[in-house]
C-alpha cells in the first residue's frame, strides 16, 4: 500500500464516520407525548385542540395544544415560526423539537393534510 492510498482512505472514512454520527444525532424518532418529556429532539404527532392556538406577540411564538391519537395526552407546543397555511385544516400536526420547562419547543412543524399535490377526491 502506498501512503497516498492510506491517506485517501483515512479521509474518506473520517467523513463517513462523521456523517454517520451526525445522522445518528440528528435522527428524530416519532415518540409518544410521555416519551417526549424525557428529553431529546423528537417528533410528536397529534391533533390540534381547536381554539388553543394563539400568537404570542411578545416572544413571537405560535402556541397551541396537541392531543394524541388515544385522546388522553395533551402537550403544549411553542413554535418559533410562521403558522403554516393549512394549520387549522390539518388532520394531524407533526412537531419536531425538544421538551423544555413544561412545553414542547418545536423547530419545525409538518402539517399533514389530505395532501398538497394529490388533492384528488372522487365525487361520489
Amino acid at each position, binding site marked *: 500500500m502506498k501512503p497516498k492510498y492510506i491517506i*485517501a482512505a483515512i479521509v474518506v472514512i473520517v467523513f*463517513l464516520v462523521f456523517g454517520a454520527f451526525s445522522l445518528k444525532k440528528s435522527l428524530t*424518532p416519532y415518540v409518544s407525548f410521555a416519551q417526549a418529556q424525557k428529553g431529546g429532539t423528537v417528533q410528536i404527532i397529534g391533533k390540534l385542540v381547536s381554539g388553543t392556538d394563539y400568537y404570542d406577540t411578545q416572544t413571537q411564538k405560535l402556541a397551541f395544544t396537541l392531543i394524541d391519537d388515544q385522546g388522553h395526552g395533551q402537550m403544549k407546543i411553542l413554535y418559533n415560526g410562521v403558522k403554516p397555511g393549512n394549520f387549522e385544516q390539518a388532520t394531524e400536526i407533526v412537531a419536531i423539537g425538544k421538551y423544555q420547562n413544561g412545553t414542547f419547543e418545536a423547530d419545525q412543524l409538518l402539517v399533514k393534510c389530505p395532501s398538497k*399535490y394529490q388533492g384528488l377526491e372522487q365525487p361520489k
Partner: protein
Amino acid sequence: MLLGQATLYLTTVFTLLALALYGASLKNNRLLKLARFSFWLATFFCAISSFALLYAFLTHDFRISYVFGYSSSDLPLFYLISSFWAGQEGSFLLWLLIGFLLGLFVIKSAKEEQAPVLFYFTLVQVFILFMLLKKSPFELLPQAQTEGRGLNPLLQDPWMVVHPPLVFLGYAALTVPFAFAIAALQKNNFDTWYKRAFPWVSFSILSLGAGIFVGGFWAYKVLGWGGYWGWDPVENASLIPWLTSLALVHGLILEKVQGSLRKTNLFLAIISFLLVVYGTFLTRSGVLADFSVHSFADLGINAYLIFFMLLFLAVSIGLMLGRFPALKVQKTSTDPISQQKFIIYVIWGLAILSFLVLLGTSAPLITKILTQPSNVAISYYVKISLPLAVLLVLFLSFSPLLDWQKTDLTVLRKKVLLPFIIALALTLLSYLWGVKNLSHLLLLFFTLWALLSNLVRFFRKLPEGLVQTAGFMTHLGFALLVIGILFSSGYSRSQRVALEKGKPQTIEKFQLTYQGEIPEQNKQNSVSLLFAENGKSREVRPKLYFSDYTQEQMRKPYIRRGFTFDLYLAPLELRKIASHSDSAVILGKGESFEISGYKVTFVDYEMEPHTEGGQMKIGAKLSVSSNDSSLTLVPYQIVGGEEPEFHDVTLPDGQTKIILEKIIADSRQIGLIVHTEAQGAEPTETLLIEVSHKPLINLLWLGGVLVMLGSLLSIKRRVS
C-alpha cells in the same frame, strides 16, 4: 375508450416491439431498421397521447378524472397547459414523452452502437410506461362533471410552466449516459462511450440544474414551500443525481484527456440514473408520506417501482462485476498537487456529499427497517454539507492555478498571492460585519479565493472565445452561489410585526402602514401596504387569502429586491377583532344599573348544592326590566372544583352578556362583568407580517445563472 388511452396502448405495443427488436439486433443488424421504425412509431403515438391530454385540458373535458382533478374552466391558458403535469399521472406522461423525443437524438449520437444503447434506453421507457398504464391520466369518472376542482393555487405560477419539464428533461437525459455505459459494458468496448455520453452528461447537468434552480427561485417568491431550499426528500431526490453527474463530468474530462478513471466513470454514469429511479421510488411510492411536505399519495405502483429498481440494479451490478476485473486501466502517476489529482479530489468530495445526502433522505426508510421510523433534522444536512463545501471550494480555489501534471510551487506561490490577500481582506471585512462563526469564515475565505482566482482565469481565457471559458464561468457561478447561500441562509434576520390598520410603523429603515384588504380575482385577495423608503412611498400588495381548493391560507410575499439585500414582506395572518366593551359593576341587594335600555336589579342570591360531590352552584337573581317587559335571569358560578366555572346570561337584545364574576360575602354584594358588543363599529384589523432582511441573496441567483450558462457553453464545446 378515449383516443389518448388508445394511443397509449399503441405506444406500449410499439415500445415493447422496439425493445424486442433492439434486443434481437444485439447479435445481428438485420432488424435494426425495423427496431428504429418501432421506436419512431412509439414516439409518434406517445406524442398523440400527450396532445390528447393537452386537448382535454384546453377543452375542459371533465369526463376525465385527471382533468377534473387538476383544472377548472376559469384557468388562464398557461395554467391550463401546466395542469398537464400538476399530478403524478400527467408528469409520468411528460417524462415518457421527453424520453422518446430525446431518444430520437440518441439514435443519431449512438451511431453503430444503436442496438445496445437503444435497447437499454427503451427498457427505461418501458419502466415509465408501466407506471402510466397502472395509473392512466385518461381514466374516466363514473359520471361526467360540469366543472373541475381547479388547480392548486400554489401551482398557479408562471414557473410551474417550466420547472417540472426541466426536471423531467434532466431525468430523461440522465438515462442516456446510463444506456451508453451499460451498452459499453455489455459489448466490452470502452473506446467511444464516454465521448458520446459527454455532451449528454453536460446536458443533464444543465437541465436538471436549471430545474432545481428554477424550483428554488419559485419557492423563494411563493410562500408555502418553506424558502428556496428545504432539504425536503423531493428536492433531495433531484439534487443527489445532479451531484453525481457533476462528479461524472469531472471524471469524463480525465478520461478524455488521458484515458484514466474508466471504471469510476462507468460507475458514476450508472449510479446517477439508478439514483433517479430510487428518488422516484422514494417520492412517488408514498413511503415518505409522513416525512415530506410534498407527500405524494400512494398510487399502488410500489410493486412496479421496486421491481424495476431491482432489475436495473441487478443488470448494472451483474455487468460491472463481470467486466471490471478484466478492464484495463491506464495508470498515470502524478504529483498530488496537480490539476489531475485535484479533479479526483473533487470527484471524491462530490461522491461523499451525495452519499451523505442520500443517507439522510433515506433515513426514514432505513430506520423503519431497523427500529422505529425516524426522520433527520435539517441541521444534519447543514452539518455535513458545510465541511464538504469548505473542501470543495478549497479545491476550486487552487485548481485553476495548477498545472496538469506537476506544479512548480514557487510559481504557484506567486500566482496565489494576490487573490489570497484580497480574499483575506474581504473575509476580515465580513468578520467585522458580523460573520463570527469559524466554519462560516473558513468557507467564505476559500470561496472568495476561488471566486477571485477563477475570475482572473476567466478574463485571461476570454480572448480565446467565450466557449473556452465554460469551466471557469461555471466555477465562478458556484463560488457566487456558495456566498449567496451562506449569507442568505446564515445571516438573514427577520421579525414579526403586528400592523394595526392605518397606523404606520418603522421597521429597520422602512415605514410600513397596513391599509386594508383588497378583493381580487378568484378570491385571491391581497393586502395593501404603504411602503415608505427614503422619503418615497408606494403601495405594495402581498397576497393573503384562504384557498377553497387546498383549504389553506395562501400567502405570497412582496419582495423589495436590492443589490445588497432583499427585503421580504410576508403577510402571516389578518385578525379582525370586533369592538366590544367590558365594564365591571358592583351591586348590593336591591341596587340596580342601566344598560342599553334595560334596568338590571340584584334581587338575591340563589344557592344550591351542585350534583357532583362538594360543589356549589351560586347564582345571582337579577330582575331585568325594560319599558314593555320584565324577566328574571340568573348568572351563576359553580364553585368547589379546582377553578370556578362561569355561566353567563344574555339580555334580550342579544348583544349584552352578564357574567357573575365574584361574590362579596362580607358586604353581601356581587361583582358583575357586563360585556357589550358595539353596534355598527368597524372591527379593528391587525395584520401580522414577517419582515425579513436577506443579505446577498442576489449573488445566489447570479451564481446559478452563471452555472447554467457555463454548462450551456460546455455542451457547445463538446458537441463541436
